[in-house]
Every structure is written in structure tokens, then in C-alpha cells.
């Protein structure tokens, strides 16, 4: 990617209204010199160029915007347009200043993105470089070169990280941490020791579950045998029992009563359950509450006319009840509003509910709870009598067994033992099959409870296993990302150092200065410090090597490139810069020309544009009056594109 600066235009801003064209014969030359006396708005222009490139003006405060208004002016708006080439495609950023609202808006003109677009929308391939970390590396003042060699700062390291996007490796580390926190947000045990605890519980529960399962199978099998044996014994015993006529009659009567009471007990229990299903019979509180509900419905008064159906039918009529005709628009409005009213089915439901309450609660104001009490009392009587009949039958049977002799008694004893064992087995099976409690212990008999708890523990283990494993995986990625960053940074530093030294060898053949190491800053070989010239040479070399890495080309835009240099150094830096980059744009003042300009011209030849731009104040009247014919004038500024004019231009009061 190659970025070329073509020029800019400013209107209504703190800097004078100027149109700066850096091109020569339709193309950007190797060197563009913009001579601007102090007070012409160099700093403002550089800030606006940076803001155009980075899109950062959107973050400026009202004060920041206000400060860019032309002093003493009443204009409500201003504009700055930066023109570039991204590879060979024209690209322009336009910043519009609204001084009334104190706001800035962007427009981007770019063929690759479909022409003019609102907002800051550079092409994707350029956007990567247009940020706060990168732009200051190619639009800067001389101080940056010094900062690169300053061990207290980390400018060199930051520049490499920014260009090579090493921060994406930090993003990977951050993402692994975020993943881990997300995965473990609602979990207790996150460690291997927690996992061991759960696994031990699973083992205990699994063992218990197996034991209970076996017990159930054994009980069911034994119960089946026991019941078969009981049937056999009963049959055998009955064959041996002899009843006389009176006893037989008594026995038949008792058995009939038992059957009739068993049926009565079932019926009574059923009727009690039926009563319990009606809340008004359970407690007077329920009856009172239902009466109150009906009362509330009565107060609400829901006339049938307000039902939804009324409006639905009205919508089909040609005329409304008020006499106005109903068209399609009115019809839709009525149907839309109909939903706000009760539908017929809902209205009917409420009426039915009210009717039921009236009939079941209000029309029967008896002590409703007494109906259940009397039913339960009747059930108790049936139970008691049933129990008495069963005891009587047992007695008849016991007497008959005694009369039948030893063999019958022996069978009866075995039968009793079998029945007792059967009851124990039934009890055990009930215990195993019972509905589990909320908390299931490791020695529970509830097979369903153990099954449920085992599933829960296994789910827990699965989750913990997942997170423990996930943690190990994320740790592995974090180690790789951090190590990659270390290795990449080291390799990049070495590669850039070697490239820089090759360039320094070429452009400063008479000077043995070389970069020894790139750490946070640049360290020079065999020397503790460097002269201003050496600092600039090393700084420019480092930046241009870095910027041009990966076949990218950026302009080098420098404010006062020779301002603080002595004559010899100016000459050397002037010779060097055009060899480092394809486009060098310098903001200069007249006092920087000596020794610097001849050196630049020696290397760049005719590929130089000479621009002189200044504010046309009253104090400049003499200069304004003698402007050449090709000068471009504006409301408060002038630009001259001419070498001779550039060389002769002087401002007596001008200072660096």
C-alpha cells in the first residue's frame, strides 16, 4: 500500500484560507517544501492533517472545535479538505466545522468505497494504518527522533508493536481470560481438587444405587414366591378346616358384612375427596374469598354491549350507530379497537364463574366445613366396624384351626410367618419405590432419588471436567500467544535493526554510527549519546525502515526538519532524507533554508515543489503588494508556488 499526500484546502479556520497543492506536473514529487512563517497556522494545519487521517476529530470537545474558529471572525462554518492517493486511487477527507453547534462532521471521497460517503470511511487496506498509534510515525516533529533514542521512553518499541499489530496477541490472551470467566461464572468447584470430591461422591452413589437396585430385584422375587406360598398354604389350610352349620352361617354373615363395609369405605372415601375438591367446603375463609370475588365482578359491571363481538359486528355494517357511513379506513379502526374490549367467550366465562359462586357458596349458606367433618366421622365408623368384623372372622378361623388338629395349626403358623415376611417385603419395596425427598443422602433407599442424585452429580462432574479441561486449553493458548509476542518482537527488532544499519551505511557512509540494539528505545553501537544530526539520521532511518516494511510506502511529513541543526548537520540530513522515502513533505521557515535546501536539491534534483504560504495581515501589506502574478490569493492568505520566490522570501520579524 502506498499513501501519497497531494495537498489540502482550508476555509474559515484558525489557519488562513489556503489551497496547498503539493503536486508537480500532476504527480507528487519526491520533496514538497511548504514555507510558512510563524503565525501562519503550521501547528493547526498539522493537527488538521492528523485529524483527517485518523478520524479523531469526532472525539474533539466543544472547546477543541471553538479554538479552530478564525479569531475575531463571525463565520458559522469552516472546512478542511485533505487530498491523497491510496495506491493510485484518489482519496479525500473533508472535515466540516459547525461553529454554532460546535461539532465536526466527516465526509470521505473514495472510488474504492463507492464515491462520496458521509463519515470517516477510508478504504480497508488503508484504514489499518490510519490510527493514533501509526499516523504520528509519519507526521511528526523533530522531537520524535530524539524520543526514539531516549531510554526513558518506549517510542521505538511502541512503533514496532503498532506496525506489526502485536497487540492482537494481547487480545488473544484477553479473550482466553474472558472465555474462562464466562465458562465458570455459575460454578462452584473449578479446580482439580473440587473435581476429586465430586468423583468420590459419584462412586458412593453409584455403589449405593447398585445395591438398592439389587435389593429391589431380590425383594420383588421373594415377594412373588411368598405370595405363591401364601396362596398354597391358604388353599391347603382351607381344605383341612371343617365348619359346623352354625359356625358356617356365622362365618358367611361376617364375610358378607366385611364385603359390604369394604364397599362402603370406598364410597365414603370417594365422597370425601369430592368434597375436598370444592374449596368452599374446606374452610369458611375460601367461601368468604369467593363471595368477595363475585362482589368485585359485580362492581366492575361488564355490560354485554362493551363486548368485543359488538364492535366486530359493527365493522361489517355500512353505517355506524351514530349514523355516519363506515368505509374501509373506519372498518380497520373499529376492528383494531375491538381488541380492547372483552370478547364474548371471556364475558361468558366471567358470568359462569359468578353464577357458580352464587349457587355453590351464596345460595348454600350452611356451615360448609361441617359437611366434610360429618363425612369423615361416618368413614371412621365404617372403619371401626370393618375392623371388628375382620377380628371376628379371625376368631372363627382360629377356632376352626384348633379343631382341625396339629397339622392345620402347623400350616397356620407357617402361613402367619409367610404373611409377616410378605408384609416386610412390601414395606421394603415401598421404601425403595417411594417419592424421593429434595435432598438425597448417600445411604438413601429411594431408587428414584439415588438415580436423580447420581445424574446431578454426573452432570456436575461433566461441567467441572469441561472447565478444568478448558482451563488447561486456555492456558496453553495464553502461553503460545505470549511466547509468540516475545519471539515476534525479538525477530522484528533484529530485522529492523539490520535493515536500518544497511541504510545508515549507505546514507551516512562517512559516519560510523549504527544501531546496536532495539529495546524500548534505540541503542547506538559503541557510543552513549548522539549529536542532534545523528539522532535525526537514526530516527528518520528507523521510522522510514519501519514504515516501508512489508512494501508499504508512506509520506514523511516533518515540521521544521532542519530547525535545530547546525550547518554541517543540515547538509547531511538534507542529503539523506530524499533517499529514505518516496515523498518528503517539510514545513519550513526561511531560516531553515541554508545548507539544508542545497543538500535536498542535490539529491532530489528537479523533483521538488517550492511553496510559500502566509497570512495576509496588515503588516504584510508590502509583501502582498509585490506578489507575483501566479500567486493564489484568498480572503486572508496567499500561496506562491515558485522556487525563486521561495528562496527570496523573508519575514524580518520571523523567528524560529
Amino acid at each position, binding site marked *: 500500500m502506498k499513501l501519497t499526500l497531494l495537498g489540502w484546502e482550508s476555509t474559515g479556520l484558525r489557519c488562513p484560507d489556503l489551497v496547498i497543492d503539493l503536486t508537480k506536473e500532476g504527480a507528487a514529487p519526491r520533496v514538497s517544501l511548504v514555507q510558512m512563517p510563524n503565525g501562519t497556522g503550521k501547528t493547526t494545519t498539522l493537527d488538521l492533517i492528523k485529524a483527517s487521517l485518523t478520524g479523531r476529530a469526532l472525539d474533539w470537545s466543544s472547546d477543541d472545535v471553538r479554538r479552530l474558529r478564525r479569531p475575531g471572525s463571525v463565520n458559522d462554518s469552516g472546512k478542511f479538505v485533505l487530498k491523497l492517493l491510496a495506491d493510485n486511487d484518489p482519496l479525500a477527507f473533508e472535515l466540516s466545522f459547525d461553529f454554532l453547534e460546535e461539532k465536526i462532521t466527516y465526509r470521505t471521497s473514495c472510488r474504492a468505497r463507492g464515491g462520496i460517503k458521509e463519515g470517516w470511511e477510508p478504504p480497508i487496506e488503508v484504514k489499518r494504518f490510519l490510527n493514533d498509534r501509526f499516523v504520528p510515525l509519519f507526521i511528526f516533529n523533530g522531537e520524535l527522533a530524539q524520543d526514539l533514542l531516549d531510554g526513558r521512553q518506549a517510542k521505538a518499541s511502541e512503533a514496532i508493536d503498532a506496525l506489526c499489530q502485536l497487540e*492482537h496477541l494481547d487480545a488473544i490472551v484477553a479473550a482466553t481470560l474472558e472465555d474462562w470467566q464466562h465458562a465458570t461464572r455459575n460454578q462452584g468447584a473449578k479446580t482439580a481438587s473440587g473435581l476429586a470430591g465430586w468423583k468420590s461422591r459419584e462412586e458412593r452413589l453409584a455403589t449405593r444405587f447398585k445395591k438398592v437396585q439389587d435389593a429391589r430385584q431380590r425383594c420383588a422375587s421373594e415377594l412373588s414366591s411368598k405370595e405363591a406360598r401364601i396362596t398354597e398354604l391358604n388353599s391347603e389350610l382351607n381344605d383341612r378346616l371343617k365348619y359346623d352349620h352354625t359356625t358356617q352361617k356365622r362365618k358367611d354373615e361376617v364375610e358378607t358384612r366385611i364385603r359390604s363395609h369394604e364397599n362402603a369405605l370406598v364410597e365414603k372415601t370417594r365422597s370425601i375427596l369430592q368434597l375436598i375438591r370444592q374449596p368452599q367446603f374446606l374452610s369458611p375463609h375460601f367461601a368468604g374469598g369467593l363471595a368477595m370475588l363475585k362482589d368485585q365482578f359485580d362492581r366492575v359491571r361488564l355490560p354485554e354491549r362493551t363486548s368485543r363481538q359488538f364492535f366486530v359486528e359493527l365493522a361489517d355494517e355500512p353505517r355506524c350507530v351514530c349514523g355516519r357511513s363506515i368505509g374501509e379506513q373506519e372498518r380497520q379502526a373499529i376492528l383494531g379497537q375491538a381488541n380492547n374490549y372483552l370478547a364474548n367467550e371471556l364475558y361468558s366465562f366471567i358470568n359462569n364463574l359468578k353464577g357458580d359462586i352464587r349457587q355453590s357458596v351464596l345460595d348454600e349458606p350452611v356451615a360448609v366445613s361441617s359437611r366434610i367433618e360429618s363425612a369423615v366421622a361416618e368413614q371412621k365408623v365404617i372403619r371401626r366396624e370393618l375392623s371388628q368384623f375382620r377380628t371376628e372372622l379371625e376368631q372363627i378361623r382360629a377356632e376352626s384351626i384348633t379343631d382341625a388338629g396339629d397339622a392345620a395349626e402347623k400350616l397356620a403358623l407357617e402361613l402367619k410367618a409367610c404373611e409377616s415376611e410378605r408384609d416386610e417385603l412390601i414395606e421394603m419395596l415401598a421404601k425403595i419405590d417411594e417419592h424421593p425427598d429434595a435432598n438425597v443422602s448417600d445411604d438413601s433407599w429411594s431408587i428414584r432419588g439415588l438415580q436423580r442424585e447420581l445424574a446431578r452429580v454426573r452432570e456436575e462432574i461433566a461441567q467441572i471436567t469441561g472447565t478444568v479441561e478448558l482451563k488447561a486449553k486456555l492456558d496453553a*493458548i495464553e502461553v503460545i*500467544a505470549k*511466547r509468540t509476542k516475545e*519471539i515476534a518482537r525479538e*525477530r522484528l527488532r533484529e530485522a529492523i535493526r539490520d535493515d536500518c544499519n544497511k541504510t545508515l551505511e549507505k546514507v551516512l557512509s562517512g559516519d560510523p554510527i549504527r544501531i546496536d540494539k532495539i529495546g524500548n528505545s534505540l541503542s547506538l553501537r559503541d557510543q552513549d549519546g548522539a549529536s542532534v544530526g545523528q539522532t535525526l539520521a537514526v530516527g528518520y532511518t528507523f521510522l522510514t525502515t519501519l514504515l516501508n516494511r*512489508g512494501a508499504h510506502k508512506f509520506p514523511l511529513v516533518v515540521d521544521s526538519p532542519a530547525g535545530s541543526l547546525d550547518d554541517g548537520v543540515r547538509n547531511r540530513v538534507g542529503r539523506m532524507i530524499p533517499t529514505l522515502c518516496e515523498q518528503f513533505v517539510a514545513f519550513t521557515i526561511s531560516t531553515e533554508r541554508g545548507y539544508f535546501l542545497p543538500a535536498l536539491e542535490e539529491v532530489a534534483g528537479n523533483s521538488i515543489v517550492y511553496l510559500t504560504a502566509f497570512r495576509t495581515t496588515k503588516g504584510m501589506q508590502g509583501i502582498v503588494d509585490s506578489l507575483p502574478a501566479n500567486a493564489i490569493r484568498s480572503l486572508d492568505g496567499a500561496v506562491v508556488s515558485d522556487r525563486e520566490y521561495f528562496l527570496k522570501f523573508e519575514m524580518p520579524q520571523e523567528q524560529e
Partner: protein
Amino acid sequence: MAVDSEVLVALKQAVQESDQTESLEQAIAAWLLALSERELGHSENKRHLEAAKHAVRLIPGD
């Protein structure tokens, strides 16, 4: 948009040092690319998350 070649070389070395597979190296390279494209608004966040998940899946468990 590409990831710097030196970063890819470094990634290869780091993955080898950690005894992980070449597939993981490729997955992390894809993840870096997705991050780079996300920064430019060129791809959705979803793509970066998918790249991350894929990389995690490629590391064998116990």
C-alpha cells in the same frame, strides 16, 4: 489484510515449543487475521469468536 510474516514465524516456533499441532498454529493465525479484520470493521465479531473456539477445540484434553 495479512498477519506480519515475522509474527507467523514466531507463532510457528511458539507452537512447536509447546508441543502442539500445526493445525493449532493455523487456527491461531486465522484468529489473528480475524482480529485484524475486526479492527478494520471488515468482519463481524462472530468470526473472531468462531476462530477462538476452533483454536480451543484443537488442543487435546486429558
